C-alpha cells in the first residue's frame, strides 16, 4: 500500500486560516489501511480542526466525505455536489488523490493533510515499513524475494557492503541489512549459488530516471 502520515496540526491550521468552509476528503484505500486518511481519521481531524479554530474564536465549517478511491476520476465526481458549497478542499489521500481533486476542480484550492511516504507493508499493527520503490524493473526473482532497491540503504545490487554488522545496517541499527536478509532467504531456499552471480548494473530509465512514467494498456484504452 501507499503509506502516509498526517501533517503537523500547526501546518494544517495555517493553510486553512483564510477559509471558513472546507471539504475534508478521505480515501477508502491505502490511507485507510495505514490509518492516515480513512473515514475515522477524517472524523478525528475534522474535530481537531474545528476545536483549534473555535479556540481562536473562529468557526470553521467542515464537511466530511470519504471516497472509495481518490485516484480515480469516477469517484472524484462524487464531490461535484459539495464543491460549490466550500471555499477550499483538504485531502487526506496520498499525493495522487490530492492531484486528482486539483485537476478536476481547477478553481478550488486543495491542500494535502498527509505526507505521502512510501510503498510499504504492515510489519505488525501500527508499524509499516518500506518494501518497494517502483523501480520499473523488478529483481525480486533474483534476490530471494527481498528487494535490494527498497530495503538496502545504498540500493546495492550486489551486497552487502562493509557497513553490515550482525545483520544490521550501518545507517541505523534498527534497519535490517537487506543483503543479509537476501542471503538468509537464498540459503533457506537452497539457492546459495545465485548469490555468487553478479547482477548487472540497473537501467534506471524504467524508474524515475526517465521522467514521470505512464502505463498505457491499448486493450483497455477508451
Amino acid at each position, binding site marked *: 500500500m501507499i503509506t502516509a502520515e498526517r501533517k503537523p496540526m500547526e501546518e494544517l*491550521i495555517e493553510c486553512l486560516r483564510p477559509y471558513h468552509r472546507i471539504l475534508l476528503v478521505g480515501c477508502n484505500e491505502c490511507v485507510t489501511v495505514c490509518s492516515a486518511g480513512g473515514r*475515522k481519521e477524517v472524523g*478525528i481531524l475534522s*474535530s481537531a480542526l*474545528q*476545536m*483549534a479554530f473555535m*479556540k481562536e474564536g473562529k468557526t470553521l465549517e467542515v464537511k466530511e466525505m470519504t471516497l472509495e478511491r481518490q485516484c480515480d476520476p469516477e469517484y472524484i465526481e462524487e464531490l461535484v455536489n459539495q464543491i460549490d458549497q466550500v471555499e477550499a478542499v483538504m485531502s487526506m489521500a496520498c499525493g495522487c488523490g490530492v492531484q486528482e481533486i486539483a485537476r478536476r476542480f481547477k478553481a478550488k484550492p486543495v491542500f494535502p493533510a498527509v505526507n505521502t511516504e512510501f510503498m510499504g507493508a504492515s510489519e505488525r499493527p501500527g508499524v509499516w515499513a518500506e518494501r518497494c520503490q517502483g523501480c520499473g524493473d523488478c529483481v525480486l526473482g533474483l534476490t530471494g524475494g527481498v528487494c535490494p532497491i527498497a530495503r538496502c540503504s545504498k540500493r546495492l545490487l550486489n551486497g552487502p557492503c562493509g557497513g553490515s554488522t550482525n545483520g544490521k545496517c550501518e545507517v541505523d541499527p534498527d534497519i535490517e541489512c537487506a543483503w543479509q536478509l537476501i542471503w538468509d532467504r537464498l540459503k533457506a531456499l537452497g539457492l546459495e549459488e545465485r548469490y555468487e552471480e553478479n547482477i548487472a548494473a540497473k537501467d534506471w530509465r524504467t524508474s524515475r530516471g526517465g521522467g514521470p512514467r505512464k502505463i498505457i494498456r491499448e486493450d483497455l484504452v477508451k
Partner: protein
Amino acid sequence: MENFEPVIVAFCCHYCAYTAADMAGSQRLCYPPNVKIVRVPCSGKVDAIHIMKALEKGADAVYVAGCLEGDCHFKNGNIDAAKRVAYIKKLLDEIGIGGERVEMILMSAGMGERFAQTAADMTEKIRKLGPNPAKSTSMDMASNNL
C-alpha cells in the same frame, strides 16, 4: 470563572468502573455531579473519535475508566484504550486544548472509593484548569451575538 462547573464525560467499562460507580452509590459515597457517565461494554470500545466529539460538543474533560491491567474481560481492551488516550493527549496538546483534559484511569469493580475519589480529583483539576478553550470561545461568541 469563579462559578465554573466543569462538564466531565467518563466512559466507564461495564465490568469495572461502571460497577465501581454503582458500588460507590451503595456505599453512600458522594462524588461530584459534574461527571457524566457513559457505560461502554469495554474501555477498548472507546475510540479516539468518541473522545474528540465529547470535547468538541462541549465537555471540559474526558476520562476513560477501564479494568486493572490483566483484568480486562476482552483480554487487552484497557491497554488499547490507554494507547488511544495517549494519542489524543498528544493531538490536544498540538491544537492547544491541552492533553491534561483527557485521562485513562484503571480500577476494579470493587473500588467504589477509587471511583468517587477519581471523580472528585478530576473535577477539582479541571476546575483549576478552567473551561475547555474551544467551548469557552464559542460560547462567548454565542453570548456576544445575543
